[in-house]
């Protein structure tokens, strides 16, 4: 049950870990979503854990199983130094599907979180570009939710100029970088 990773997390977070499950050689830790950013940051920065990789961020919809909260966001971390892996899960209720972003911890969570938003409608607070990534911008609903019909077809053809992905600051930087004079 207790490996060095679980020990370390217990030492640091104590009872804030809702569950620690060790099944099939995989460590799963459930944390409250208010603490998830703190736990993830600890996992990366702590020299003993050193989870340098965020391999994956995804979510699960538990609607047909009738459990609350409805969603769980799942992080898979990997440590290059120790070879350990950990799965961190946090429950997200349906009426307030928001989790703190981890983009400031690992850059790799950028698109992973966008995909979770696209497929499950779970928003990540503080994400620089919380926008759909796989589905069209005019798509409605979130396809991997269990109440989304699998056989629904959309025909969406409005082109996306992608300009909304450039922030005002960046626009200023781009204008400064250009060698030619730019019309105002």
């Amino acid at each position, binding site marked *: 049950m207790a490996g060095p990773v679980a020990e370390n997390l217990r030492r640091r977070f104590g009872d804030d870990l*809702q*569950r620690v*499950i060790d*099944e*099939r050689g995989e460590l*799963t830790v*459930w944390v*409250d979503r208010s603490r998830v950013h703190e736990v993830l940051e600890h996992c990366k920065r702590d020299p003993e854990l050193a989870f*340098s*990789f965020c*391999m*994956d961020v*995804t979510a*699960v919809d*538990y*609607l*047909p*199983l*009738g459990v*609350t*909260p409805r969603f*769980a966001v*799942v992080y*898979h971390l990997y440590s290059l130094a120790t*070879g350990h892996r950990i799965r961190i*899960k946090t429950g997200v209720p349906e009426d307030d599907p928001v989790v703190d972003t981890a983009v400031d911890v*690992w*850059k*790799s969570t*950028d*698109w*992973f979180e966008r995909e979770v938003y696209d497929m499950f409608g779970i928003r990540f607070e503080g994400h620089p570009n919380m926008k*759909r*990534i*796989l*589905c069209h911008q005019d798509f*409605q609903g979130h*396809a*991997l939710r269990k*109440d989304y*019909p*699998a056989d*629904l077809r959309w*025909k*969406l*053809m*409005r082109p*996306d*100029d*992608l*300009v909304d992905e*450039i922030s005002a600051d*960046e*626009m200023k930087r*781009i*204008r400064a*970088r*250009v*060698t030619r004079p730019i*019309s105002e």
Partner: protein
Amino acid sequence: MVFKDAALTPEEMPKTTPVPRQHGRMPTGVSWRPLEPTTDKTVLPGGRAVHLDRFPVEEEALETDPLVEDLMVLNIGPSHPAMHGTFRIKLWLDGETIVKAIPEIGYLHRCFEKMSESHRWQEVFPYTDRLNYMSPFLNNVGYAMAVEKLLGIEIPPRAQRIRVILGELSRIMDHFVCVGTNLVDLGALTNFWYFFRGREEIYSLLEHVSGARMMVAYGRIGGLMRDVHDGFEDEVRALLVSLPRYIDDVDKLITNNRIFIDRARGVHAIGPEEAVDWGWTGPCLRAAGVPYDVRKAHPYYGYDQFDWQVPVGTTGDVYDRYLVRMEEMRQSLSIVEQALDDLPAGPVNVDDWGISPPPKDRVYNTIEGMVAHFKLTFEGIQAPVGEVYSYTEGGNGELGFYIVSDGGGTPYRIHCRAPCFAIYQNIGPTLEGCMLSDIVAILGSLNVIAGELDR
């Protein structure tokens, strides 16, 4: 605590499910309503009438770009010969220098994860073929390993070895296509012919083994579709003679080629910390100097028993990615040779009729065999409740499958951790400052496979 209910452990699983789940159908009580279809009919010039469902293409939607007057805007893709798949990069150019690049993906999104939820465990294999379609068998292995981990079974040694042999040949195929097309984009067509000839030879072997050249669907939960044919070993040995020639030919043509070096060295150099932070795995990460290979770090199927090395680059640029892939092909050939030398005899499927279908003579001649066959086909493999994350080394890096099962014949949730998705996500920031002509070199060296990227 409310969260007590949320974890999936068997004892705490609710006994009755409030929303009934049926095979192939979504639950009733859908809270979501589709939009009403419009009947706007538009007549195009030429007289052809089309229905534009909801969004007619408007002129102003195309150009609302505030930078367009000052910078040149160039769309590469979604359909472009140098893109190797259907995705788009929008570029803002100052002369030939890229000022800003934004990728757009999703054009090849085929809802792999959604579709898997309405299929039985064994019916997912053809979908996995189409993730990274350059090395389909490696995806079969990755998915099969995940389900086998969930079931808690180990496949027979012969099946493991065949998975290693065909998996490594698939990896060589993947690298053939990646390096070959990368060089085509840089103007060197001959190498492409050399590599595609080798690829065709591997295809012929796969066709002989599985019946299909490209989408093999040869993996099965608990083993393989069937045992390999007589003469398989001779055919693989013939490949071991012919394939190194193609690699050597390209090596002689390209590795010290002035034009290639000028186009590749120092281009898109990604350091090790940055690569790890972006979640890179596979040859691109190893080119950056991080020796992480799932086959070495977490050996499966006896990869630790073979004598082989993990090639590592130093600069992480396009040239190092080429070198790493070339050396990996040689290492893969060495693994194939060693695996072939002691290919054990025996069955290729687990001896459990609840997982592997019974042999055909038992199906036709015994009632038990027929019942097992029908139950497996109609009800599927009865997997236990639980969740696993299983990882293998795919053609592009760590190919992970995260599987949640609520018990029964269909997966509750399958998520594919596609290596491309992580590798491609920093293309926007890292392209800034590059030259326009570098893009084809960079895209080719990253080996972005749209099937895997969009799933």
